[in-house]
C-alpha cells in the first residue's frame, strides 16, 4: 500500500517537472487523434518502446552506474518466446509474455550473479561478449529461424488475445500504458531503499559496503528489474511488428543505442531516458528516411555520434544534467 502511494505521488518534484510530465501524458493521449500520418504514428510507438527500454536500463546503468551493454539479448529472448510460442503452439500473447519476461529475468539473474564479480570496464566488456555470443547463436540457430527471423502468423480478424489489430492506435495506447507503468515504478524506485543503495554504490563501492550494503546482491537485483523492462518491451515488439529477426531485437547495436540514448538524456535521473528517446528516435527515423530518400545514407549516424560527443564533453550527466545545472544557479 505504502509502495503504491509512493509510486503515485510526485509531490516531491518541482512544479515544472510535474507540468512537463502532465504535458507528456496529454501529448501521448491525443497524439493518435491529432495526426493521420502512419509514419508519424509508427515513430511515436517506437519512441514509446525505447522509453521502456531506457527506463529499464537507467536502473542499472544510470542509478547503479554499471555500464551493462546487453539489453538487446533480453529484449530478444522475450520477443522470440512470444513469437515462437505463437508459431509452434498458437499460444496467445497474454500467456507467452509472462514466460518471455521470466526467461529474460532469469537470464539477467544468472548473468548478473557471475558478471558482477567484475568491476568497471571489465564488466562492460563482459556484457558485450555475452551479447555477441547470444547474437551469433540466434543468427545461426536454424530451429528458431536463424538469420531469416520469425514471422508471426496473422489471425483473420483483429484479435485482442493475440494482440493483433489493424489500427496502430491500439498498439499506441498499449505501449503508452507500459511506459506509464514503468514511470510509476521508477517513481517508487527512486524513493525506495533499493534506489538509495544503488545510487550509493555508483557513488563509491567501498563506502557503500561500509554502510551495510551487500553490493553484489543489490546490483543483481537491479539487473533483474532491468531484464523485466527489456522483456516487456521485447514481447510488445514481437506482436507490434509481427516479424522479428536477430538483427532487430538481438543485436548489440540495439544495446548500445539504449545506453547512449539514456546517457544523452541524462543517466541516473527520472526523466533522462524519456528526454533521450524524445530526441534520438524521431531524429534517427526522420533524418534516416529523409537522407535515405536523397541518397545519402549513414549521415544520420554521424550527426548522432557527433551529438553524443558534444554532450559527453560538455556535461557528462546529459541533457538533464544541463537542465539541473541551470536550475541550481538562479
Amino acid at each position, binding site marked *: 500500500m*505504502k509502495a503504491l502511494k*509512493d509510486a503515485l505521488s510526485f509531490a516531491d518534484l518541482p512544479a515544472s517537472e510535474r507540468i512537463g510530465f502532465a504535458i507528456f501524458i496529454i501529448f501521448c493521449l491525443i497524439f493518435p487523434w491529432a495526426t493521420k500520418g502512419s509514419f508519424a504514428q509508427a515513430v511515436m510507438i517506437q519512441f514509446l518502446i525505447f522509453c521502456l527500454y531506457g527506463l529499464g536500463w537507467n536502473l542499472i546503468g544510470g542509478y547503479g552506474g554499471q555500464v551493462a551493454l546487453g539489453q538487446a539479448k533480453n529484449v530478444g529472448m522475450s520477443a522470440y518466446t512470444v513469437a515462437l510460442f505463437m508459431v509452434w503452439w498458437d499460444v496467445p500473447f497474454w500467456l507467452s509474455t509472462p514466460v518471455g519476461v521470466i526467461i529474460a529475468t532469469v537470464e539477467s539473474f544468472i548473468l548478473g550473479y557471475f558478471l558482477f564479480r567484475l568491476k568497471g570496464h571489465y564488466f562492460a566488456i563482459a556484457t558485450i561478449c555475452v551479447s555477441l555470443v547470444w547474437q551469433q547463436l540466434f543468427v545461426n540457430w536454424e530451429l528458431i529461424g536463424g538469420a531469416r527471423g520469425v514471422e508471426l502468423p496473422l489471425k483473420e480478424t483483429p484479435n485482442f488475445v493475440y494482440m493483433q489489430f489493424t489500427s496502430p492506435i491500439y498498439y499506441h495506447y498499449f505501449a503508452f500504458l507500459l511506459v506509464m507503468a514503468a514511470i510509476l515504478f521508477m517513481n517508487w524506485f527512486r*524513493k*525506495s*531503499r533499493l534506489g*538509495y*543503495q544503488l*545510487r*550509493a554504490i*555508483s*557513488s*563509491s563501492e*567501498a*563506502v*557503500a*559496503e*561500509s*554502510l*551495510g*550494503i*551487500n*553490493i553484489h546482491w543489490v546490483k543483481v537485483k537491479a539487473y533483474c528489474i532491468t531484464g523485466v523492462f527489456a522483456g516487456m518491451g521485447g514481447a510488445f515488439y514481437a506482436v507490434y511488428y509481427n516479424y522479428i529477426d536477430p538483427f532487430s531485437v538481438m543485436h548489440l547495436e540495439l544495446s548500445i543505442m539504449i545506453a547512449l540514448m539514456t546517457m544523452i538524456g541524462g543517466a*541516473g535521473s527520472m526523466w533522462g531516458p524519456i528526454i533521450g528517446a524524445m530526441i534520438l528516435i524521431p531524429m534517427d527515423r526522420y533524418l534516416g528516411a529523409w537522407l535515405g530518400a536523397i541518397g545519402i545514407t549513414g549521415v544520420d549516424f554521424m550527426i548522432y555520434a557527433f551529438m553524443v560527443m558534444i554532450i559527453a564533453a560538455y556535461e557528462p550527466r546529459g541533457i538533464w544534467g544541463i537542465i539541473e545545472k541551470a536550475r541550481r544557479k538562479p
Partner: protein
Amino acid sequence: MALLEVTDLTKNFVGVVANDHISFEIEKGQIIGLIGPNGAGKTTLFNCIVGYHKPDQGTVRFNGKNITGLKPFQTNREGIGRTFQIMSISGALTVMENVMVGSFCRVSDTRSARKGAFEIMKLLELEKDADARLTELPIAVQKRVGLAMALATEPKLLMLDEVAAGLNPKETEEMVALLQGIFKAKDLTLFVTEHVMEVVMPISQRIIVLDGGQKIAEGKPQDIANDERVIRAYLGEKYVEDRKHRGSI
C-alpha cells in the same frame, strides 16, 4: 567479555608484512587510540577487522562472534561502523541522502530512514548542509558527514580512520569535542587511529602503538608518551639517547 578481540592477526602484502601477529582487546564503552608513524599498518589493521582485507592468520571476534574474513557489509550489520581517511564519493547524492543510505542499514522504509538520518544530522550540526553535495563542502564538514553516515548504521563499535587528517588546529579541537559528545550520547565504543598524537592523547583511555606492522606498546596515554620504543618510533634513536642522558626516561 571484550567487545572486540583481535588475536594474532597477520596480514602480508607481496614482500611486506603490514600486520605482524597483532593481538589486543577492546572493552565496551572505552575509547581506544591506535597510533603509529605513517606506514605502521594502522589502516591495514582497520581493513582487516572490517573486512576489506582478509587476514592471512589470526582471528577477529566481535561481541563473542567470530567475524574473521566476513565482508565489510556483514561486519557493519554486526555492529561495526567505520569512517574513511579520504572519503572519495561523488556528488551524486546530497548529504541527507548519504546519511539516509546509512539509516537504510537498519530500517527498510524511507520515512523511518529519513527520520533517523535527520536525528543524526541534528546531533552533528549538519542540518543546514542537508541539501548540499559532499563535493561542495569544506573538508571539516565532509568529515562530519562521514561520521554521520557511519553513525546512521547504529554501530556498537565505531572505528575512525584519521578523523583529524587535513583539519586545522581549531577544527581538530572541535572534532575532538564532537567525538566526546557523541561518545556519551550514543553509548558507543570508539577505536580511533591517528598519527597526530594531540587527537588521541586527551580522549583515549588506552593507546595501542604500531610500528613497522608490529604492536610495540599498549597502555595509558601518559605511559605511552614516555615509552622508550614509542619515542624511538616517532622521533628516532638520537632523541631516545638524548632523553636518557637527561634522565627523563
